[in-house]
C-alpha cells in the first residue's frame, strides 16, 4: 500500500446557501500527479484552498501531509508549495530577486538560496534574462519560473491552480515536463485544470460537477467506464449533468 499524502473525507464548504464543495472524499498517493477537473465554478479552487489552509471547511475532515487542516495549518504550510491561478511573482522584481525572496520566505539559508538560484536559472534557461524584470518575460517563462519557485523548498506536495491558463500547447507541454520531473523527484502534484489534453497527462483524475466528485480513476479507466474515445468526451458526458449556472 502506497503512502497517502492527502486524505479528504466528506469535505464541505458552504457560502451561505451555496454549497461550493459538497462532501468530497478522495485520497492522493505520494508521488502521483493528481488531476482535479471540473468546469468553471464546479468547486475546484474552493477545495484546493481548504487543503492549503486558506479557507476553513464548513464540515468534513482532511489531512494534508499527515496534518489536520483545522488545527495544524502551520505544519501544512511548511510542507506544501502553491501556485495560484493569478500569476504570483512580483513583476517589478528581477528573476533573481524573485527567487531569492521566495527562497528567504520559505526559510532557506543563504547557501541554499544561492545554489538554488543558480540551479533554477540554468535549468530554465533564464541565464540571459536573470537581471530582467519579470514583467518583461513571456507568459510561458513566467509560469515555469513561478512553478519552480513554488517547489524551491522541496515540499511534499505542490498545489497548482490552473497553472497553464492562457499559454500555447507547446509551452504547456514544456510546463508539464517540469511537473513530471517534480513528480519523479517525489513531489506529489495536485493540479486543477480544464484542459483535457492535460488531463491525459495525470496519473489519476477526479472530475467535479456541481461541487461533487462524479468520477475518480486513471484516465484510461475513466474512458472505459464512460465508453468514450477521449477525456474530452468523458468530461462532456459528465459536465452535461451540471445544473449549476456558471
Amino acid at each position, binding site marked *: 500500500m502506497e503512502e497517502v499524502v492527502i486524505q479528504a473525507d466528506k469535505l464541505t464548504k458552504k*457560502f451561505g446557501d451555496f454549497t461550493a464543495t459538497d462532501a468530497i472524499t478522495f485520497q492522493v498517493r505520494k508521488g502521483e500527479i493528481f488531476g482535479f477537473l471540473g468546469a468553471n465554478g464546479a468547486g475546484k479552487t*474552493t477545495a484546493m*484552498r481548504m487543503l*492549503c*489552509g*486558506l*479557507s*476553513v471547511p464548513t464540515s468534513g475532515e482532511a489531512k494534508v501531509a499527515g496534518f489536520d487542516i483545522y488545527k495544524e495549518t*502551520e505544519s501544512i*504550510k*511548511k510542507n*506544501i508549495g*502553491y*501556485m*495560484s*491561478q*493569478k*500569476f*504570483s*511573482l*512580483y*513583476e*517589478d*522584481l528581477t528573476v533573481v*530577486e524573485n527567487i*531569492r*525572496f*521566495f527562497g*528567504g*520566505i*520559505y*526559510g532557506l539559508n543563504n547557501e541554499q538560496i544561492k545554489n538554488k538560484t543558480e540551479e533554477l536559472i540554468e535549468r530554465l534557461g533564464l541565464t540571459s534574462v536573470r537581471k530582467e524584470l519579470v514583467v518583461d518575460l513571456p507568459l510561458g517563462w513566467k509560469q515555469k519560473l513561478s512553478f519552480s519557485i*513554488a517547489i524551491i523548498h522541496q515540499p511534499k506536495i505542490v*498545489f497548482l491552480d490552473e497553472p497553464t491558463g492562457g499559454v500555447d500547447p507547446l509551452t504547456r507541454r514544456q510546463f508539464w515536463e517540469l511537473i513530471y520531473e517534480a513528480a519523479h523527484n517525489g513531489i506529489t502534484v495536485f493540479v486543477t485544470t480544464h484542459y483535457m489534453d492535460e488531463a491525459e497527462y495525470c496519473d489519476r483524475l477526479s472530475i467535479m460537477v456541481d461541487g461533487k466528485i462524479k468520477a475518480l480513476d486513471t484516465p484510461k479507466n475513466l474512458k472505459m467506464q464512460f465508453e468514450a474515445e477521449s477525456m474530452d468526451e468523458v468530461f462532456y458526458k459528465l459536465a452535461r449533468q451540471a445544473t449549476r449556472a456558471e
Partner: protein
Amino acid sequence: MKRLLVFIKKEFTHVLRDKKTLLILFGMPIVQVLIFGFVLSNEVKNTDLLVIDQAQDRASKEIISKVQASEYFDIASVTFDVQDVEASFKKGKSKAALILPKDFEKNLMTKHVAQVQILADASDPNHATTIENYLTAIIRDYTNSLNASMPYTIIPEVRMLYNPQLKGAPNFVPGVMALILMLVCVMMTAISIVREKEMGTMEVLLVSPFKPIMVIVSKVVPYFILSMLNIVSILLLSVYVLGVPIKGNVLLLFGESALFISTCLSLGIFISIKTQTQQVAMLISLMGMLLPTVLFSGFMFPIENMPFPLRMISNIVPAKWFYIIVKDIMIKGLGFAAVWKESLILMGITVFFLGISIKNFKIRLA
C-alpha cells in the same frame, strides 16, 4: 527574523524601483513646503481674548464692553496681572491680550492721548494680524464716538509673541508635515498591502510558512523609515531654506512624529484590510483621510470659525492633534508637559485602529 529582513528588503526594492512612488515620497514634501509659503488669509471670529484692566475706570470699562459686543472676540477673563498673559497663551486659553494701563482715562481726558497694548499669539500669523486689525478698529471706533471738540487718540502698541516677524512659514510647516505623513503613510501602506491582494501574491504568502502578521509588519517598517526621512527633509528645509527655527526639543519633535506616523500606519493597515483593490484603497485614503486633514487640521481653515458639529468632527482627525503638537514644540518651544494630552489622543486612535485591524485581519482568505 531573517525572513522578516528578506521581506523588508523586498519592500524597499519595490519603493526604490518605482520612480513615481519615489517622486511622491520625496518630491512632494519639497514642493508642498515651497508652495504653501503663500498661505490663505482667513477671517477670524470669536477669538478668546484676555483683558488686563489696570485702569479700572470708565473709559477702560467702555472699551471692554465694546470689545465684548463685537462678534470677533470672546473675553476669556479680565484680570489685573500682566503675568497672566504668558500662562494663558501657553495653555491656549486665549489667543490675544489687551492691556489697558493705569490712568488710562486720566491720560485720555487730560492729554488727549493714551496708550493700550495688544499682545497676540503669532504662531498662527494670519490669525494674529487679523486680531490686531480688529482690535485697533474697535478702539478707533471708540475714540471717534467720544465726539469731543479736540480729537482723542489712543495709540495701540502691538506685540506679536512667538513669531515676531509674522512669518507665514511657522504656520504651514507643521501643516505640511501632517499632510505629507498622512499621504505617505496611510495611502502608501494601504496600497502596498492591497496590491499584494490584487496581484495574487498575498495568496502565495499566506500559503507560505511566513506568518501573516509579519506580512503587515514588514510592510510597515519601510514606510516608517521613509517617513522619518521625510520629517528630516521637511525640517531641514524649514530651518535652512525658510528660516523657521525649531524652538523646542528636537528629540521630542521626532518622538511625536514617530507617534503620528504610527497612527497613520495603523489607519493604512485598517484601510488595506477593508479593501480589495488598489483604486478603492487610494480613493478611501484620499477622500477619507487627506481631505479631512486639509479641512480639519486647522492648518488652512481656522477651526474656531467652524460651526459646532464640524468642530466636533475635527476632534477625530488625527492631523489636528499632530498639528497642535508640532506648533507647540516647534514654534512655541514648549515641552512634553504642554502636549501630553494631544499625544494621548493620538495614542488612543492608534491603538483603536490597530485593535480593529487585528480583529478583522483574515489569516484565511475566505
